[in-house]
């Protein structure tokens, strides 16, 4: 169902090409089953890393948008995509890296955000442009983040750079537990 919806959204037409709409559906299903290597609770489709699956000439093209430039998971993700497609009998797909528009956490599906919270990672707020380019007193301007364990709003950042590039390190002043916050990007 998701695959059909996404296909419609992307305007992929059923065509007489060797690669048909059924193959595209199958590719979406395959990639929906590829977990993010760092946060396996969500798939790379839910994270918005797979931007489009389309037909170019007669071959299948997967448009992929990397998250952070230095994310060590990027190469693993590329390999996982190839493996997942091969398992479904799609061997000749081309993976194209798309830098623009740059990946943003706003691409993460709402359902995936809910599961992040259940997993103990506070999901990202909307990625508003950061206005104060001088970065003065940033820690005091950060929006309130709800603790994913006890829902308290009495939390504070320990460091904007946590266990991975995409996460900040927070602490809850009520349940006293540390937690990760998926940084808006």
């Amino acid at each position, binding site marked *: 169902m998701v695959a059909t919806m996404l296909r419609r959204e992307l305007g992929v037409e059923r065509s007489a090409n060797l690669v048909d709409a059924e193959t595209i559906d199958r590719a979406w299903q395959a990639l929906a089953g590829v977990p993010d290597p760092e946060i396996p609770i969500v798939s790379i489709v839910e994270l918005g890393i797979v931007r489009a699956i389309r037909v170019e000439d007669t071959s299948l093209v997967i448009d992929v948008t990397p998250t*952070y430039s230095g994310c060590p998971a990027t190469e693993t993700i590329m390999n996982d995509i190839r493996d997942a497609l091969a398992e479904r009998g799609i061997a000749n797909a081309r993976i194209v890296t798309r830098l623009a528009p740059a990946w943003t956490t706003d691409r993460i599906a709402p359902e995936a955000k809910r599961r992040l919270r259940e997993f103990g990672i506070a999901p990202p707020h909307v990625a508003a442009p950061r206005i104060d380019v001088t970065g003065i007193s940033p820690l005091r301007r950060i929006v309130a983040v709800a603790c994913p364990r006890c829902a308290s709003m009495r939390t504070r950042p320990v460091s904007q*750079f946590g*266990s991975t590039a995409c996460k900040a*390190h927070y602490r809850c002043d009520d349940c006293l537990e540390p937690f990760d916050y998926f940084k808006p990007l």
Partner: protein
Amino acid sequence: MNEPSPLFDYVLRFADSDLVLAQRLGEWVGHGPALEEDIALTNVGLDLLGQARLWFAYAGEVEAQSHGRGRSEDELAFLRDGSAFRNLLLSEQPNGNYADTMARQFYFDQWHMLVLGSLSSSRDPRIAEIAAKARKEVAYHIERSADWVIRLGDGTEESHQKMQAALDYLWTYTGEMFAPDNVELALIETGVAADVRALREPWLANIGRVLDVATLALPTVAWMQGSNGRGGKQGVHSEHLGHMLAEMQFLQRAYPGSQW
């Protein structure tokens, strides 16, 4: 071999500055003053390394267009000598104490933010794409380094003194960031390069605001390293780069082509 194209040279400047600074930050791994700091420095270094790879990949493609064959990311990073590096002198300065590292990062981040903002509208679409993506990451770097300048500047007597000394020491390495040479001027003309001359005033204003809060003084020395067209961007480096490269490039030099 023909002369490298100006575009190749220009793109390498960003690749090399990111790579060299990432390597410097990597030297802190396991030595940070606190676990969170260790992780944060590594994360910033990782972002810069990722950005360096995007620039190197593009530089290789540009080289392929003009020379038939373009070097890979690894060849560019590990098999060039110091004089072929185009990084800013600031990025290669040693880590020193924590104030030195943060002063270097503060000057660099503030410049980086502005230059990437300008490059986001470069007429070269690939440069614009990389810059727009990198800028979102640098928005986090800039907050962190400014925060540390304020914490150390407005901290104890000793931290204040060390932060001021670091800012003063590194100040003369900031000149070349805003001094375009002929390579840059030609590309500014065609709308490809950032006109860094226009960025110095906003840079001064922004760092001035942070230094005010930090109770620190803006250095006033006018003389600048490398601003006479003989600096990092032209491959004329301080003695520190060679030592750094000796360590960074050792493995590929001793065991050419080895892979993980």
